[in-house]
């Protein structure tokens, strides 16, 4: 399995990437795409503290804990699930059982951490739950989340420029990184090889067709023929004007490292939204979509 840690910024931000197979059964890529992609968990560090953003998939539990173990010892940890989706929940409990998770950062309306983060049935029988000692840190969009208690390092919670399900984007001024959840996820690979990040100097064959395909392939089907698509494009433009972004860190797909790479992919997204808006809407035909006919018999 292609697992890797990438230091995004000077011992302050790490991408913990663990791969999964794209085989038609995953919702993150079109059903006829084949290959591999990383699922990324991010660690935001300050001396004595760490914020873990996302938890990855259950299949990644063992390598993820090993990766975290190389970065975290006695640090006070906060878990920060950015959306109410399985990949933000399913390894929360193993992480809390192993490391000193003192808090869970989440929006209003959630119960205590052990009440909503224990999605896996194998945890039901265990009595001791590391999540029981975690307090709740409630935020709203627009808030700044402190990483260190002195508040010198803060993460800005942003309304996503593009979204389907409820989620947030996060901006870290220290590293000039933007965490974008399920957008900018389109860089996958035919083989399960590391490193996963896309950096200046790397061969980047991403074309607009790839971006439009990934967008339309599941969550952003409604961009086809979207009215008022300029609202989204303007929102993106304003965001990247207001915040200096040198790294785009999505939940899956290659993290995009370096201002030059960022600029190229922001341009690709803007163009893709424009092109998709010119299409005829596909909302009704999406309801009749089938899984790829090339999917192997056992996959279904």
């Amino acid at each position, binding site marked *: 399995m292609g697992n890797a840690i990438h230091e995004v910024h000077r011992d302050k931000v790490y991408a913990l990437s663990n791969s999964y197979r794209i085989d038609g059964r995953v919702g993150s890529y079109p059903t006829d795409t084949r290959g591999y992609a990383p699922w990324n968990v991010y660690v935001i560090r300050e001396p004595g503290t760490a914020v873990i953003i996302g938890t990855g*998939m259950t299949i990644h539990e063992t390598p993820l804990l090993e990766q975290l173990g190389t970065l975290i010892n006695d640090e006070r940890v906060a878990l920060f699930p950015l959306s109410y*989706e399985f990949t933000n929940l399913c390894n929360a409990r193993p992480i809390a059982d192993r490391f000193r998770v003192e808090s869970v950062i989440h929006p209003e309306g959630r119960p205590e951490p052990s009440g909503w983060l224990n999605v896996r049935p*194998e945890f*039901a029988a265990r009595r001791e739950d590391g999540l029981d000692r975690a307090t709740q840190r409630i935020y709203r969009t627009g808030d700044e989340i402190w990483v260190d208690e002195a508040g010198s390092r803060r993460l800005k919670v942003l309304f996503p420029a593009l979204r*389907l399900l409820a989620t947030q984007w996060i901006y870290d001024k220290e590293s000039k990184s933007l965490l974008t959840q399920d957008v900018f996820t389109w860089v996958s690979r035919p083989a399960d090889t590391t490193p996963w990040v896309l950096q200046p100097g790397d061969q980047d064959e991403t074309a607009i067709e790839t971006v439009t395909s990934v967008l339309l*392939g599941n969550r952003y089907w409604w961009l086809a023929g979207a009215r008022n698509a300029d609202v989204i494009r303007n929102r993106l433009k304003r965001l990247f004007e207001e915040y200096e972004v040198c790294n785009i860190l999505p939940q899956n797909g290659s993290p995009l490292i370096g201002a030059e790479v960022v600029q190229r992919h922001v341009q690709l997204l803007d163009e893709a939204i424009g092109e998709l808006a010119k299409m005829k809407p596909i909302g009704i035909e999406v309801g009749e979509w089938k*899984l790829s006919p090339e999917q192997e018999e056992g996959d279904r």
Partner: protein
Amino acid sequence: MPNGLLDDVPNPLPVEVAENIFWLGQCTNSKYRGRSIHTGQATFLVAGTDHSAVIEASAHTDLPVVQDQLEQLLAERGLPDVRYVFVTHQEVPHAGGIGHLLAKYPDAEGIGGVQDLHLIFPQFAHRLRFSELGDEYPLGGTSLRVVEPVFRDLAFTRWAFETRQRTLFPGDGFAFGHEHDPAHCGHFVEDVSGLDLPIMIQRYCQSAFNWVEYADVEPFTQRLGQLIFDELDAAMLLPTHGLPIRDPRGIFPYLEEGLKRGSSTVTEALLR
């Protein structure tokens, strides 16, 4: 029967909405402009003569209540064991409890819109089967047919249709809240007075289905009407995030209006 007590309103569920079709779960309390509004993630139990099916696996925060309700119903009514756990799609409010349910019912398969779940519950990967439109799962005396998810967020969503009593489970379709009131909770929408359905649907669109801001909803409402009335002749609609509907033709105009409001209001806000 366990009581999912919320704000001192006793949980009215489970309710048998049709013969051997049960509405399970509990209301979820949220605030909207200072008022207590209930929504929810409904789960349903459909029992045939040979097998039972659970429709929607609940947000796992509701699961202890749902599991107790299931156990009691299966035991007290002598219903057959759970053979299928159908989820419309893999989002946690719909599929959150699927791992626990597949653990509890070892002969059950997870069906419907199960993308990604083999990576979350790898121990059950061999029991997860993605459903295509037209797939049918016999329960004995009735069956579950997989039908087109006209209104959705994730693309590979699936809806279920119970064939004997013509009951449609439309997932996110027809989502609306209701007042925190014993006269609302646990009732069919037709029996609730004073519920402004178009407004409730509009609010739900604004908070949960933001894609509606960018779409003309008329094709969706037209297709919904074709599916429900012309093709399925559905007698009842059981949405995951709304009260049960037993008069689809009578309620449908309010649903259309709510969706149109949900689309146009937010667009107007965007244009300001």
